Each structure stands twice: as C-alpha cells, then as structure tokens.
C-alpha cells in the first residue's frame, strides 16, 4: 500500500519539481499551427510518447537500475564509484540523444528542480553520485531514476512515472493553450493509458541493455520547435 501512495505522489503534477511550467513542446507546435484541436493534440501526444517519452523513461529506468544494483549499503565507496561511472555514461548517452541544445538545457533545468525536492525528501539517497562536471546539473531522467529508487519504487514504476509525465504535462498545457474541454482531454489521456503502460514496460526492459543501445527515438519537429520556441520573447511555458 505504501508503495502505491508513493507512486501516486511522484507521478502527481503537484510534486514540487516545476513540471507545470513546461508544455513538452506543445506551445511551439500550437504556434506553428500544427496542433489546433483535440485530434491533433492526440496525434501530438502519441508521437511524443513514442519518442521523447520512450527515451526519457528508458533513461529513468537505467538510472534506477544503477541506483539499486550491487551492494546493500548505498554509501559503500566502491559501489558509489561504480554508480558515478554508470550515471556519467548515461548522462553522455542522453546528451547524444538530445540534439537540440535547448532541450538539453531544459532537461538539466528540470533535473535541478527535481534534485532540490529529492535532497530534501530523501537526504540519504545517493544523489551525490550524479555527474557534477556539467554546467546546468544532471538530466531530469537520471535524477528521477535515483529519486524513484530512493522511494522504493520498482524499475517499471519508475518508467511509468516518466512516461506518464510526458503525456500529462503536454495534455494539461493543451487545455490552457487551446481552451480545450478538460473532460475531453482527460478522456483522451484515459485512451492513452495502455500506450503509456506499454511504453513504460518497453523502457524498463530496455534498461537491461548497455547504455549505447538504449532507445534513441528521434522527432525532428521536437528539435525544430524547441529552438524556435527558445527565440520567443514572450511565452506561457518555459519549454
């Protein structure tokens, strides 16, 4: 029962990690006239889940795997060094999957916000093993993986939290940006629940592969939209 409540807490948009400030690329897609109604919002969410959603969930799952592998004592120095190496490798691999510099910066900014919450709530979790050499902090999926491991969630639950956030964040931004009926948008999310679970299951399985073989699903418009959005002087969402 405790694990279920923790799962809900971590997946909740009210978890203090600033997720509500991001539209997951939807604001730029709306401005480009590519998302205009419920049907095009659904197509957006489906494509985002299969690309950024899968990659983010797989890296969260891989970070979770690095967090829980090996010794029983998480503070064991040898264990900590191995975990640092694994997380640094995942960080570089995720950079290589994030061609747009704006999206790399957004991921690190969201990672920083999540880390702030994580350090307060789970002060003994091994956040100190996250790579520190990079300006901007660690990527969000890596922080999420460690945080979910600290909360005692399973690898698949971790991937679910990540995949779920990719669709729900953009969906609620859709309500605000397009003035869509929130009931209809919620029904759309209910319809996507199976796809979301399937993506999470795929991501959790993929985390067994070596880092260079983790999913790398690309979305050209996500990169293009992100860089266009970054040039705007006025915007409702940070990304």
């Amino acid at each position, binding site marked *: 029962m405790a694990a279920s409540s923790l799962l809900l807490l971590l997946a909740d948009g009210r978890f203090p990690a600033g997720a509500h400030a991001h539209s997951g690329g939807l604001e730029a897609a709306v401005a480009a006239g590519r998302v205009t109604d419920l049907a095009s919002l659904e197509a957006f969410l489906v494509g985002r889940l*299969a690309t950024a959603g899968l990659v983010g969930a797989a890296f969260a799952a891989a970070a979770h795997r690095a967090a829980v592998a090996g010794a029983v004592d998480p503070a064991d120095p040898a264990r900590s060094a191995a975990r640092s190496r694994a997380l640094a490798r995942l960080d570089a691999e995720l950079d290589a999957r994030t061609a747009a510099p704006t999206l790399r910066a957004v991921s690190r900014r969201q990672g920083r916000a999540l880390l702030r919450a994580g350090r307060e709530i789970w002060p003994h979790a091994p956040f100190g093993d996250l790579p520190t050499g990079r300006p901007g902090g660690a990527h969000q999926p890596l922080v999420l993986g460690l945080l979910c491991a600290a909360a005692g969630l399973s690898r698949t639950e971790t991937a679910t939290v990540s995949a779920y956030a990719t669709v729900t964040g953009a969906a609620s931004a859709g309500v605000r940006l397009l003035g869509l009926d929130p009931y209809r948008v919620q029904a759309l999310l209910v319809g996507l629940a199976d796809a979301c679970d399937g993506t999470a299951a795929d991501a959790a399985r993929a985390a067994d592969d070596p880092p260079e073989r983790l999913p790398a*699903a690309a*979305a*050209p418009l996500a*990169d293009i939209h992100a*860089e266009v959005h970054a040039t705007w002087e006025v915007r409702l969402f940070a990304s």
Partner: protein
Amino acid sequence: MRALARLVARADGQGGTVLVELHGETPLLLRQTPSEGGVATVHVVGGAAGPLAGDDLRLDIEVGPGAAVRVHSVAASVALPGRPGAVSRMAVRAVVHGGAALHWLPEQLVAAAGCAHLAESRVELAAGASLRWRDELICGRYGEAPGGAVVHTQVDYAGRPLLRQSLAVGPHAPGWAGPAVLGGAPATGSLLVVDPSRPPEAATADGSVARLPLAGGPATLWTATAPDAHTLRAHLTV
C-alpha cells in the same frame, strides 16, 4: 540478397588519397570516379532494384590518418517489400582516423509502401577527424503511404557518444506523421558536420529546419522536414 562491400583509403603522403581496397558485391557495387582536390570519390552503384525485404547489405569504410573520401550514390534507393515478414537491412560502418575526412552524401532513401527496412549507420571518429554525413528519407513514393522504415545513426567522437538517433516511420511507428514528429512532411533528413577546425555555432531554427550544435564534440546537426526531396536537399546543403 546478401552483399558486403568494403572501402579502405590511405593518405598517399603527397596530399592525395589512395583507395587500397575497393570492392563490392551485387547489388552493392562501388566505383571510383575522378577525384577532386586530393579527395578520393566513390559512387555506390545499385546493381539491382531494392533493397527488397530480406536483403542484407553491408558497407564497411575505413579512412586512414590524413586521407579524405567522398561517397555518393548514383540514384535514390527504394526500399521495397519482399518475402512476407522479412526485413531489408543496409548497415554502414565507418571508421575515420585523426586528420582524415569522410563525406557520406548519398541520394535519398525512399520507403515504398509495404517495405520493412532498417538503415543502420555506425561511425567512429578519432579525435581530429572530420565528417559530413547526410541522411535523407522520403516517406513513400508519390502519393503513397510508406511501409516501415527505421533510420538509425550512431556516431562516436574520440570515444565519446556524439549522436544517437533513430527515426521510425510507417505503420509500426505511433505518431510518426503527427505534429510531434514530422507534421505530415513526406521528406525528412539530417546533415551531421563534424569539423574540429570550425568554431562552435549557435542554434538556429525556422519552421522546418534547425541547426543544432551537439554536446559531445565539435559538431553541428542540421535537421529538417520538407514537402519534397528537392526542398529537403536545399535545407541540407550547407
């Protein structure tokens, strides 16, 4: 069909490049064409239609220290269906040593209706190597919905991951034609330029093309979507 082709280039010590190995197998044939300014030029000549599902084609390229190679193809390749359940595969492996340059600038890949194709490129660049790598994908012949195609690109620079991307289109790629991925554009592609002598550039974008400086090395990726092959080529010619 299965075919293995191999290209090995070495600097000749006088500012030029010699091809010490150049051989192919039908349908993957390699032909040396007149070189320009010390750059050895090779054309890939499709010796048969396809690739057809079931074909397994592989090209290995090695560019030795200080050598320079440019690879083109004489025509677009059209991935076609073959045996039910079979997948066609074109795997390119390239190793580029320090001070060497590889320009991989083939014609488009067309994913025809019913195809099941995997284009897989793996490039290892030593520190100080240069690369120009263009991939162009046309989703279906004129007026046709494409079959399944995956274009997977994996590039390392100086032992670090530089680029990993896998673009999937067709009936098994959810949302690929939607506004998060291609927005209905039938043509998409990218040009990766790795050039240690070029100063870093800022990102730019307009509605259908972006210039993206990468994190893992002295590299820039141009990524584009377009209404047709001609417009796409214009976006990816820099």
